[in-house]
């Protein structure tokens, strides 16, 4: 058996693949954060709560109305997006003229509320959601059994992330978006409905989080705390990557997942702090983040 640093290469490859699975969640969430930040200048603390809500909506759909996984994959992001739009219309838009910190504080309060409500009704112990039948079982990769469902998660999130990147960077709609980010007043003057775009952007950003939640539901237990545990790590990912570029947040998310996976091989105890350590190093060497622009 071949070994690297005394670790069998099989185990190493296995952990790499698993890291990629986690990385896809980081990528999807940090992408959503970056899209929202670009347009609204708000860091959406409620992002983790939306991810959690996505998982819960999937569970509720199945339990109360018999809506299966495949439909949930489409309907839940829409539902979460609508919730996001309502939040944007009724609350966030009053804050655009103020210091950005207020947006963070407001969404923090929302996150507490959403988490608290689910906790109150469903307890904190987590609810089971089974893997759809089509995706049960595992693929033998030679070095490990990769459950089909995990592979599916990586594929879906990569497709979604790349599609988002394509729309924003390569289409006309994306050009409007980028223009509105750069100079909202001028863009408005050219006849683009900027408030509408802002609203849809927020809806889309949180819908991504909701989709992440649906994808996570069968892999992890559906629990009210799943979002807040994740969001802080994703914040660190965002600080590392900088929020300047779409591709940047996707790549940072994926690669940090892999870094985390590798840490689990060499020193498992540090696996939950390694992302923060990377953040510290990046802050010392390149304060603006790997893909950020110094302003």
């Amino acid at each position: 058996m071949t070994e690297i640093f005394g670790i069998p290469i099989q185990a190493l490859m296995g952990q790499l693949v698993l890291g990629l699975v986690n990385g896809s969640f980081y990528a999807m969430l940090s992408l959503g954060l970056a899209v929202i930040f670009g347009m609204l200048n708000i860091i959406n603390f409620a992002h983790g709560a939306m991810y959690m809500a996505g998982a819960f909506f999937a569970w509720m759909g199945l339990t109360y109305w018999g809506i299966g996984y495949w439909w949930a994959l489409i309907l839940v992001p829409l539902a979460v997006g609508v919730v996001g739009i309502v939040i944007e219309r009724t609350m966030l838009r009053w804050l655009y003229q103020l210091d950005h910190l207020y947006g963070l504080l407001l969404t923090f309060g929302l996150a507490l509320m959403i988490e608290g409500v689910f906790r109150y009704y469903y307890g904190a112990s987590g609810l089971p959601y089974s893997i759809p039948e089509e995706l049960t079982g595992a693929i033998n990769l030679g070095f490990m059994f990769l459950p089909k469902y995990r592979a599916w998660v990586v594929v879906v999130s990569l497709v979604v992330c790349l599609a988002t990147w394509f729309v924003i960077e390569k289409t006309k709609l994306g050009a409007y978006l980028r223009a509105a980010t750069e100079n909202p007043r001028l863009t408005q003057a050219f006849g683009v409905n900027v408030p509408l775009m802002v609203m849809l952007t927020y809806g889309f950003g949180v819908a991504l989080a909701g989709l992440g939640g649906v994808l996570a539901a069968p892999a992890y237990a559906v629990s009210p705390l799943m979002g807040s545990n994740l969001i802080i790590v994703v914040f660190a990912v965002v600080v590392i990557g900088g929020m300047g570029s779409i591709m940047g947040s996707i790549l940072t998310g994926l690669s940090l997942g892999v870094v985390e996976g590798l840490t689990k091989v060499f020193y498992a105890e540090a696996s939950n702090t390694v992302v923060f350590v990377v953040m510290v190093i990046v802050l010392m060497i390149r304060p603006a983040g790997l893909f950020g622009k110094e302003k």
Partner: protein
Amino acid sequence: MKNFNKKQICVAIFAALGLAASAQAQVSDNVVRIGVLTDMSGAYSDLAGTGSVVATNLAVEDFKAKNKVSWAIEVVSADHQNKGDISSNKAREWFDRDKVDVVTDLVTTSTALAVMKVAKEKNKIALISGAASTRITNEDCNDVTVHWTYDTYAVANGTAKAVVKQGGKSWYFLTADYAFGQSLEKDATDVVNANGGKVLGAVRHPFPGSDFSSFLLKAQSSGAQVIGLANAGTDTTNSIKQAAEFGITPKQSLAGLLMFITDIHSLGLATTQTMYLTEAFYWDRNEETRAWSKRFFDKQRKMPTMVQAGVYSATLHYLNAVKAANSDDTQKVMAMMKKTPVNDFFAKNGVIREDGRMVHDMYLMQVKKPDESKYPWDYYNVRQTIPAAEAFQPLAASKCSLVKK
């Protein structure tokens, strides 16, 4: 200050009345108040929570049905949110302001340790059912606390011994990386070694975790026959789920060192079948347990866990002791509780040791296969009764300062 004076006046009045009716009970302010301090909203609310309050009320009901006493019994309850500061605050308030005489349940070790210290300070009683740590009857023991239902030693001991005897000789631990997980791992390691098994290694996972796949993969590549889960609650249920997903079970088997019937209920028999676990109580064990559990089920719509059954047993034993001692004075009641054996559906001839450990039989269960389960909550085959003398840490090994050596 004002309250204090009022209390003194009350005491004076009752003392005067008491003289007249001398042999009447000497229960302070004529009410025995039981405080159920438990997890109403967190990760353990299913295995304790409102069910523990129901169990307490059943104990009061049963006591009143059998005994006519001149004093009243009140039950109060609160959510300790699994936080030490909240629980000790609440206990302080209860003891100081609301004249609570005894606190029961206390689901996490942090809340239990915090409250038993307040109880000692205020000279009141703590009857712990939900918490697991052996610290309660070792380093941190005191003379006003009884640890009623189980502890990490008892559950790890029973399960590990049984699994090794069934041929699961080589072990690998998946351990929650904090004090509780580490002590569970240590207790189980000792048992495995003592019974001729071998521990190949352990991986520590962050607490709380949601993704155990990479840790499980490490456990898998260790080639051990048994993966011991030295964690609790959602960590355990998630590990079991993901082990199935990665095809680790049934090639290697899992041993949950601390599991409750609620965990089996939420995971389902398909995932948990043939696992071994040790509990202090199973509702379907005999006529007596079934009869009580049915009453419990009618109120709670769930079968009782060992924690809830333990709360009942502790409360009833306490009330009987108050009656027998004819007083709610902490020292007198504790002396009576320790003198009298515990006899109810939960424990037969249970004894409270000087370190505060209530020793009683434990049961080794094996989870049924789905086709063996005939009715709701029909989950276990009772494989073995672990006699009280073997089930708990021997008194000689106790680090409790109250144990005379």
